[in-house]
């Protein structure tokens, strides 16, 4: 299901300090046409359909469609991602609507503590244990063959 920008909804992220879709695309495919303040995907063949542009767009202007060569058109998929959950809305061609909501993380945004909260006192850089080990392994020592 390739993504595409609906120019009617895209406002070029004019209220933000950077263009969201352009910031996030792992393959750097999204480009802002500053003349008309609309974004577009510069090379659909190199798009992985990772949907990061879809999820990040503040105006939900990036939509997805079926493959033109074998999927009948008319269905749609949209999503809303919040700080702790994502909700997908599927619209079938016959009008049926389904929604699925999934948790995306269990901790508040920004709070990932590198050592995971384990007591860390590892001093031996040359030993086999990573810095949170063996506590984070739940073992008394790192396993050996």
């Amino acid at each position, binding site marked *: 299901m390739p993504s595409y920008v609906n120019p009617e909804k895209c406002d070029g992220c004019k209220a933000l300090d950077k263009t969201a879709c352009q910031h996030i695309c*792992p393959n750097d495919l999204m480009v802002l046409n500053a003349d008309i303040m609309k974004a577009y995907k510069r090379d659909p063949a190199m798009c992985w359909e990772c949907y990061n542009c879809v999820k990040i767009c503040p105006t939900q202007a990036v939509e997805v469609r079926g493959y033109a060569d074998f999927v009948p058109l008319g269905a749609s998929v949209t999503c809303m991602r919040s700080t702790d959950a994502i909700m997908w809305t599927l619209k079938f061609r016959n009008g049926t609507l389904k929604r699925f909501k999934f948790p995306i993380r269990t901790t508040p945004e920004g709070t990932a503590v590198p050592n995971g909260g384990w007591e860390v006192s590892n001093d031996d850089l040359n030993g086999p244990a990573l810095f949170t080990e063996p506590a984070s392994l739940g073992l008394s020592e790192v396993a050996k063959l």
Partner: protein
Amino acid sequence: MKVADFETVEVRTDLLIVGGGMAACGAAVEAAYWAKKHNLTVTLVDKAAVDRSGAVAMGLSAINQYVGLKDGENTLEDYVRYVKNDLMGITREDLVANIARHVDSSVHLFEKWGLPIWTDEEGKYVHEGRWQLMINGESYKVVVAEAAKNAIGLDNIYERIFIVGPLMEGNRCAGAIGFSVRENKFYVFKAKATLVAMGGAVHVFKPRSSGEGLGRAWYPPWNSGSSAYFTIQAGAEMTCQEVRFIPVRFKDAYGPVGAWFLLFKSRRRTHSVRTTWRPAGLSWRTGSLMERSNRFRPTSAIT
């Protein structure tokens, strides 16, 4: 034609991590601890935004390697045997064992950082297959990148810089060179040690798919062989290059990803290797994973 005026930016650091994917973020977390003890700096550079870069940019639905050492589910020997068998004996057992003895602690860290791992009524991880755990992994990469950012600090992370090769001092790799994909800037990273993790290589062979299917490879189109190029140029020893993984694409699925394998109960074959890597999160043994009871299913399915 006006020639762009390129500025050259020099960045000096102790440890340079090239790439910002899962491996690089993990390395940043680990390195930050030791660097702090020894007053060293760690710098990470990625051509994309680390929140959503690499093969986990889209999120994943499973963790494909969990050994379960703490609960005695498997031993290191079991895992090495499994990999060896899966790869028809062509494997470096020392490397496999070394990854296997540390992977559980990484998984435990992911959980602490906020990755929702499915658990059953007793709080045990839900398995889909012997080595797989089920997750709600839409934000897997976001969570892991967050730990890396918190570990080395945003000032030490360079995004949207495309690395083109190693900086060599005779036979020693002294860093990396690249350019910004946003500004007219060349970057020269000078480092005491350089760790490379820019992913694998996609599109090595021309896909047979055409039309809308072109470019829809199983592996991300942005992992374009930079690790291999960089490390070969730098004179690193290459190992485990014998195995190729060539997933098929057919209607509605690309290789191991997608629900349709389950319905077909198919097994994939590559040219040289039979792989039993299942489609993420699905198993042909047990049928629908949705039948199982666990903590992190879709919280609501509204029709």
